[in-house]
């Protein structure tokens, strides 16, 4: 029985990590599913759905060896993975402002209140070291009208100088 697992690798960024890991997975007859690789704070991070019909123990051992070689932290977890489960977002929310504690908590709690389901979130810290700014993009789905979501967000964060902007995502299927 093929089993999906989630492979997470975190460590110092260096050339060739993805190539080496994906080559091993290929050689071991593993299939790759959805993946997301990014650099966070200069660190290499990847999360990768992997499925195999072969010996999982050997595969895990070989991955561990690469992780050791390349100074990466590795985490492997069995998951109830399924492909073809994409949900379409209907709103995108952009948030930015001077970096301060609690922006994410405040914004996401408002979103829970208005019934907004977050499908995707990414954030960055930019600006200067003395005056960092926080920028966040959220995509998700909500039945609540855009104006109401906007009003709730403004009421919660505008006083702190945090700007939020909602745009509608109209996915064209043609």
């Amino acid at each position: 029985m093929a089993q999906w697992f989630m492979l997470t690798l975190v460590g110092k960024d260096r050339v060739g990590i993805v190539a080496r890991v994906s080559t091993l997975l290929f050689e071991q007859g593993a299939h790759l599913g959805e993946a997301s690789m990014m650099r966070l704070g200069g660190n290499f991070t990847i999360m990768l759905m992997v499925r195999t019909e072969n010996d999982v123990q050997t595969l895990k051992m070989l991955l561990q060896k690469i992780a050791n070689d390349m100074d990466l932290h590795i985490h492997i977890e069995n998951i109830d993975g399924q492909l073809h489960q994409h949900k379409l977002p209907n709103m995108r929310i952009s948030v930015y402002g001077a970096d301060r504690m609690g922006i994410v908590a405040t914004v996401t709690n408002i979103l829970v209140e208005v019934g907004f389901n977050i499908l995707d979130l990414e954030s960055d810290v930019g600006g200067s070291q003395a005056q960092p700014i926080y920028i966040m993009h959220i995509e998700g789905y909500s039945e609540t009208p855009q104006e109401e979501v906007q009003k709730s967000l403004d009421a919660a964060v505008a006083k702190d100088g945090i700007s939020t902007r909602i745009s509608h995502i109209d996915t064209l299927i043609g």
Partner: protein
Amino acid sequence: MAVLDILQYPDERLKQLSVEVSNFDTSLQYFINDLLETMYAGPGGVGIAAPQVGYFKRIAIVDVSKNPKLVSNGCMILINPEIKKWEGMKIGREGCMSVPDFTGNVIRAEAIEVHAQNVEGKWQTFSCVGYEARAVQHELDHLDGLLFLDRLVSRRTDLFQRKKYKKK
């Protein structure tokens, strides 16, 4: 009338170039009726191109009029279509009946002028903006063997609010 089968990528035929329509006869009318029915039966129902049903002629249909909030020309039957003018650029999310379960960001012109023949062979010009302009560009790409997958831009690209103009 009949709902036709939709070709799905990786079917290589979707990469084929479609040829001009030269006979404006009753069989064309019948085909267009089937194409319309197939389009309205689909998940989005706003556009379809003949090659998506394995008929490699330059025929596309766009109808975004179901959404009353959108500016639209109603149901446009576009035969041998050609885009004559482009203006503006905008990122939007697209999917395709020929590419199930995947959507991605694509840059399209915001406003276009399209010149096409109708079912009787008469030439017409449509000005399209926004979502309708996007749908026309998506469908016309199919006639050239292009999918929105050929035009994907990274998710991060839309962090930049760009305003550029392209003319031809």
